[in-house]
């Protein structure tokens, strides 16, 4: 076994960290407060090739792997979890299903501009009545000549309103439940597509989350992704990989919170000594760091498995479960280390704590991860 990252991976980490600290971190607090997405940051990520890390050069990517992609999401999330999830949804949720299930024409038309970063991707699965129970969706797609006509709406769409291209799931055959679901590539300017309510959220506030609405939205037949009836499988496989991205996001948030806590604990003096000199504080830091290391290893393992074409469903669920819980715990403790100051917006730890919570919810709640893991253990 070799736990060392390759030179290429180390280079990507260094590049993304520099970029994150110089270009992303300075405005993170303001963007959070103003609930503002900054397209300029995305454009700069595109220039660096970050918008298409795992995709081959023939589709506009840089031909690296999922581990490099996870490292990038982690480093972005270390300073700004919103920027991390923008890239994660763009790559894992929109890019991946097109790369995996799209035909050559679809890949050239949609994956390439997304990989090059001239277009942003989104993913439409969740509905008001079907969250964890994705099979209960009500959005329909009916074939009408050479078009599918979509009707319904999707909620909690990451990159909603800023994405140009969405991978959307709808029921093509109501009779056969899961097997009656199909996937479509929808452009934001298709007639009948509109963006609905924007959510006001606890955290990741500079990543827009909206409803998207299909009102007799006409989709050319050739925008069917995969086969009719293959939608549910595409959705679930996409989420398997998406979990790696969210696990990486959670690791990044936790690392950002730990770094801030270590610095503060060394500087803050109470009772005549830095607070880190108290075991009550230093043992806390030791526990935080240990959980982060374990989460990072699980995350990298899942990404390594995927990069090597091995099965990774259970491992990515474990990575997301552990990393999400770690992020929540570590950020809550980070606010504690900062005391009263940590509760204010003058320091980033309260933002980390608000951001961390979503990693336990989206791309499969922790309960869904436990379902996935326990089923694999007992099958």
């Amino acid at each position, binding site marked *: 076994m070799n736990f060392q990252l390759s030179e290429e991976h180390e280079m990507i980490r260094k590049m993304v960290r520099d970029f994150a600290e110089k270009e992303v971190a300075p405005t993170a607090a303001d963007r959070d407060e103003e609930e503002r997405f900054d397209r300029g940051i995305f454009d700069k990520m595109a220039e660096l090739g970050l918008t298409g890390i795992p995709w081959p050069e023939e589709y506009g990517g840089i031909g690296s792997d999922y581990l490099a992609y996870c490292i990038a999401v982690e480093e972005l999330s270390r300073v700004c979890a919103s920027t991390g999830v923008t890239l994660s949804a763009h790559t894992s949720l929109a890019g991946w299903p097109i790369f995996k299930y799209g035909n050559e024409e679809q890949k050239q038309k949609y994956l390439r501009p997304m990989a090059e970063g001239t277009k942003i991707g989104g993913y439409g699965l*969740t509905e008001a*009545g*079907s*969250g*964890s*129970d994705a099979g*209960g969706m009500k959005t329909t797609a009916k074939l009408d000549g050479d078009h599918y006509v979509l009707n319904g709406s999707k*909620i*909690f769409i990451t990159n909603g309103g800023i994405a140009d291209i969405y991978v959307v799931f709808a029921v093509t055959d109501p009779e056969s439940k899961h097997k009656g679901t199909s996937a479509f590539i929808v452009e934001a300017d298709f007639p009948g597509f509109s963006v609905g309510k924007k*959510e*006001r*959220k*606890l*955290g990741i506030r500079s990543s827009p989350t909206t409803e998207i609405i299909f009102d007799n939205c006409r989709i050319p037949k050739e925008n069917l992704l995969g086969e009719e009836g293959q939608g549910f499988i595409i959705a679930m496989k996409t989420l398997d990989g998406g979990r790696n991205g969210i696990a990486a996001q959670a690791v990044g948030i936790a690392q950002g919170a730990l770094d801030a806590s270590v610095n503060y604990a060394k500087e803050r*003096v*109470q*009772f*005549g000594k830095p607070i880190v000199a*108290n075991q*009550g*504080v230093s043992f806390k830091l030791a526990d935080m760091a240990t959980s982060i290391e374990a989460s990072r290893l699980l995350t990298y393992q899942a990404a390594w498995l995927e990069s090597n074409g091995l099965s990774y469903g259970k491992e990515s669920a474990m990575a997301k479960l552990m990393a999400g819980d770690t992020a*929540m715990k570590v950020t*809550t403790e980070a*606010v*504690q280390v900062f*005391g*009263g100051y*940590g*509760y*204010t*917006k*003058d320091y980033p730890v*309260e933002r980390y*704590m*608000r951001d961390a*919570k*979503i990693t*336990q*919810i*989206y791309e499969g*709640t*922790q*309960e869904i991860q*436990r*379902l996935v893991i326990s089923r694999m253990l007992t099958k």
Partner: protein
Amino acid sequence: MELKFTEEQLMMRNMVRDFAKTEIEPFIEKMEQGEFPREILKKMGELGLMGITVPEQYGGSEMDFTSYVIAINELSKVSAVVGVILSVHTSVGTNPILYFGTEQQKNKYIPKLATGEYLGAFCLTEPSAGSDAGALKTKAVKKDDHYVLNGSKVFITNGGEADVNIVFASTDPSQGSRGITAFIVEKDTPGFIVGKDEQKMGLHGSRTVQLTFEDMKIPVENRLGEEGEGFKIAMANLNTGRIGIATQALGIAEAAFEAAVEYSKERVQFGKPIAANQGVGFKLADMGTAVEAAKLLVYRAASLREQGLPCGKEASMAKLFASKTAVEVAIEAVQVFGGYGYTEDYPVERYFRDAKITEIYEGTSEIQRIVIAKHLTN
């Protein structure tokens, strides 16, 4: 043991519950946008809630300590902001004058505080004196018939709104914490400067400010207690303050727990209410058990305090456990709500933001553990 509320206490609970529902709940959105609940405090004054434990001779309701705890509990279930305002106003804004003031000071300030005409605040914490309160740097120099105060305070709850501020300053820096003296400072005193309003994660609508004193002249008759008695005065009401915040935490935890139970019965996924899954049901069981234990710790500490018995260890345990419970239960409540819980359309994200401060103020959890450990090993 008698684990029952008296009739009077039950009446208090019903009254505050109604009041919170009809008067506070509709105002929450405004508080979230930063508005201080002045009008609500006025109405609470009319109902006698601003001086629950204050003797009638000073304009209070002269009720027992448990009734006061019940009031904070019920208020905090609806609004943690109103809960903390009342706790600070009573435990550290009013009580120091009641216990250490001269008859003249009591007559001058207590009736106004007890009826809600005045609001109280407590000014101890400084930038480099948080948990280490004895390290404060604000100085008071005596000159003829007054003291001149210079220095600054941070994280002052009710600051800027409070009419009466109990301010701690060093009259003899060579004596460390034994050189600290307490003063009653009115808001409009020249040299009393309200600084930055903290932008906080939660408790929106409660003001937390920095205060600066610039050559602020305080008449000798506004010194509270003797010179050097300040630290004793500050510590004397810690238990009451801790029980107050423990109660606030309990209220937040109860609110989050009840919301989670309701939602889990209504939300259907995979053809059944999510409560029917053990993954959710067991979570609710753990949350409910922790809330129940927190409640017992809080009311036990309150009962000891009411009987005038030692309650230092018990107050710290109540605060440590109730605040931890509030944070954990609020985080789990958001989890039960899933994606909806992360939005401002449901109150659980507010409970999440409000809960965290209960582990920090009026003695961090680390300070509570120090107190408890000392009691255990002495």
